[in-house]
């Protein structure tokens, strides 16, 4: 395992300049083409979930629909609102779109392959803090959204931008914490080494809670349903991009989808073994001179993308306070507790503690979690019962309609009149 990982990093390190340029171009092209494809795929899949057809006119199966939409978008009128802060308004989509591609520079898409007669790997670069670098890139990307919201000089975009900033600050914490367990287990923050260290078990299996926390926070981080509060169309028109049109809007669109692909690619790399084949299918990794590993990689990325679409087609949007409560009171404490457990287990096994100690610790932790959840459930039920207690108030007196016999219910009319009267006086 060690030899293999050395070769991957070394291989990338030995690339000549022209090969790096070719790879950079390839990565960019893959991102853009995949975005066009994934927009089409999303529309088709959501349509199927909603018993519609989806785009099916332009090209075979409507495959060229996104391209046509892109061209149409580019030819639309480019508006800049009067109240907008012009410079920031223009810079914001540029920040969004230029930063979202950065993450792909350190994602390993294939194992060792031959490219133009040189042995290399389909990964642009790698360094010891590659995963942190991706976190840094995504945190800069949010500036695009926040600045777009602020600079539009309009209420709904501002609300969208503020929501987005609060959202990202809270969910990035959970995301970072979920990655810590992976760092502890793989002993590295370099993407290719993390993939190499998953040769026996995927971290999605070993570190299942981390995987779940990451998947939830990646949906929150990319502003996608059910966490799409920054562009909630039912509440904020279009959210942060309400005032944008033409190419600038297209850039936001592109950035959103590249971001989704980037977090999916990171999830694949950290938890699903990256470009490695499914367990038991390891022989496929040498097919096509190693290029077949890219098929595995993109199959896993598209799996995550399908999950995004599925969530969007299934779940309603969260209310903002529920969303924040979930992030701070559930995800982050759970992450911290889980990291403590993982670190303890790791130290125990590194120090060569006997099996019975490790087993005992695990059992104690499981019991603790079970006890904790049952206590929590009970206190929650009590709190709910208390919240639903009806306040001590007189029974209502409803006004009654005039009876057809000609007699009137005096009490009813009196109470109806008095109701109106008090309203007028207010």
């Amino acid at each position, binding site marked *: 395992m060690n030899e293999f990982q050395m070769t991957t990093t070394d291989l990338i390190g030995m690339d000549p300049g022209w090969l790096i340029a070719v790879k950079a171009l390839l990565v960019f092209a893959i991102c853009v083409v995949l975005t066009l494809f994934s927009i089409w795929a999303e529309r088709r899949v959501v349509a199927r979930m909603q018993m519609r057809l989806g785009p099916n006119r332009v090209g075979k199966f409507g495959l060229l629909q996104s391209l046509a939409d892109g061209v149409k978008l580019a030819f639309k009128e480019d508006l800049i609102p009067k109240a907008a802060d012009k410079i920031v308004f223009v810079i914001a989509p540029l920040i969004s779109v230029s930063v979202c591609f950065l993450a792909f520079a350190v994602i390993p898409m294939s194992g060792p392959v031959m490219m133009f007669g040189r042995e290399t790997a389909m990964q642009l670069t790698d360094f010891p803090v590659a995963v*942190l670098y991706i976190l840094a890139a995504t945190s800069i990307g949010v*500036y695009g959204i926040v600045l777009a919201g*602020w600079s539009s000089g309009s209420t709904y975009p501002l609300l969208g931008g503020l929501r987005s*900033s609060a959202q990202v600050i809270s969910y*990035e914490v959970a995301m970072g914490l979920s990655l810590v367990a992976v760092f502890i287990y793989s002993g590295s923050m370099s993407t290719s080494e993390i993939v190499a260290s998953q040769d026996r078990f995927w971290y999605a299996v070993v570190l299942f809670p981390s995987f779940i926390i990451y998947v939830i926070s990646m949906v929150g981080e990319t502003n996608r349903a059910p966490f799409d509060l920054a562009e909630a169309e039912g509440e904020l028109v279009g959210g942060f991009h309400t005032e944008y049109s033409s190419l600038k809007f297209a850039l936001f669109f592109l950035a959103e989808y590249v971001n989704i692909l980037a977090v999916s690619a990171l999830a694949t790399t950290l938890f699903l073994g990256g470009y490695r084949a499914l367990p038991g299918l390891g022989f496929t990794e040498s097919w096509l001179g190693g290029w077949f590993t890219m098929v595995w990689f993109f199959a896993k990325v598209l799996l995550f993308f399908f999950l995004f679409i599925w969530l969007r087609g299934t779940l309603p949007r969260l209310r903002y306070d529920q969303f924040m409560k979930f992030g701070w009171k559930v995800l982050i404490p759970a992450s911290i507790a889980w990291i403590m457990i993982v670190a303890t287990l790791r130290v125990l096994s590194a120090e060569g503690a006997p099996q019975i100690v490790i087993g005992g610790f695990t059992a104690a932790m499981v019991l603790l979690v079970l006890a904790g959840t049952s206590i929590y459930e009970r206190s929650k039920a009590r709190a709910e019962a208390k919240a639903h207690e009806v306040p001590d108030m007189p029974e209502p007196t409803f006004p009654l309609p005039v009876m057809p016999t000609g007699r009137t219910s005096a009490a009813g009319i009196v109470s109806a009149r008095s*109701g*109106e009267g*008090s*309203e007028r006086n207010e």
Partner: protein
Amino acid sequence: MNQLAFEVGQTATPEAVQFYILAPIAVLAALGILVVKKAVHAALLMAWIMITLAIFYIANGAAFLGVVQVVVYTGAVMMLFLFILMLVGVDSSDSLKENLKGVRPIAITASVGIALLLVSLISRASLGREAAGIEVMNSFGNVEGIASLLFTKYVWAFEFISALLITAAVGAMVLAHSQKSADAQKSQRVKSVARFRGDSLGTAAGLPGSGVFARHNAVDVPALLPDGTPSELSVSKTLKARGDVIDGGKYALDQLPQANEAEKDFEGR
């Protein structure tokens, strides 16, 4: 940092080039913070300086420090951004008006003093030994090197600072967290029950909509009650505060003939 490297004669050409390109930009951005009018622009320039510093760190072989600089300070500047929006307002620019008399000379004296102190201290600072160089420090890997220093030699300083930061964060929360009024804590269910058990059933089914039974259905026209009087409740309080509401009495039933005449006049023009 780069000056030191020059003296040892280690600076590679690409590093020198990136320094001479980025350093002036960083200095210009720093000066820009003082010059720009809008606080948000200043925050943006601040973010830009942080990113330039991170590039310097990475170019000097401190990859971990550089990346963490971006992760931490982009979040910090984002916070600054929110503070600006909350405290200064969305659009307002800095006002140069002196609110407290005599603050300006004190501020100038204090900042000049601090600047002098810093310059004199930093110019006399020295390591006390030869610089080890980044290769020696990174011999076990950049992250491992920082970790071993942070968790052995400087562990107490590290722990004290984190305790201080947590205390500050909790203090900020206590200060910012206002006691909720009793009304805000009522659940939706309690409120809906209370609507039916109050003195009046007038708002049991929600407030009346604007323009109901009135001559116009615009948001600023109050609804007419069955007896022909306009309902104040049907118009948004915000509109009222802004003074955008048409006088409701004008549309009362007994005023209708006059209103009709006024409109005929208006159309005839």
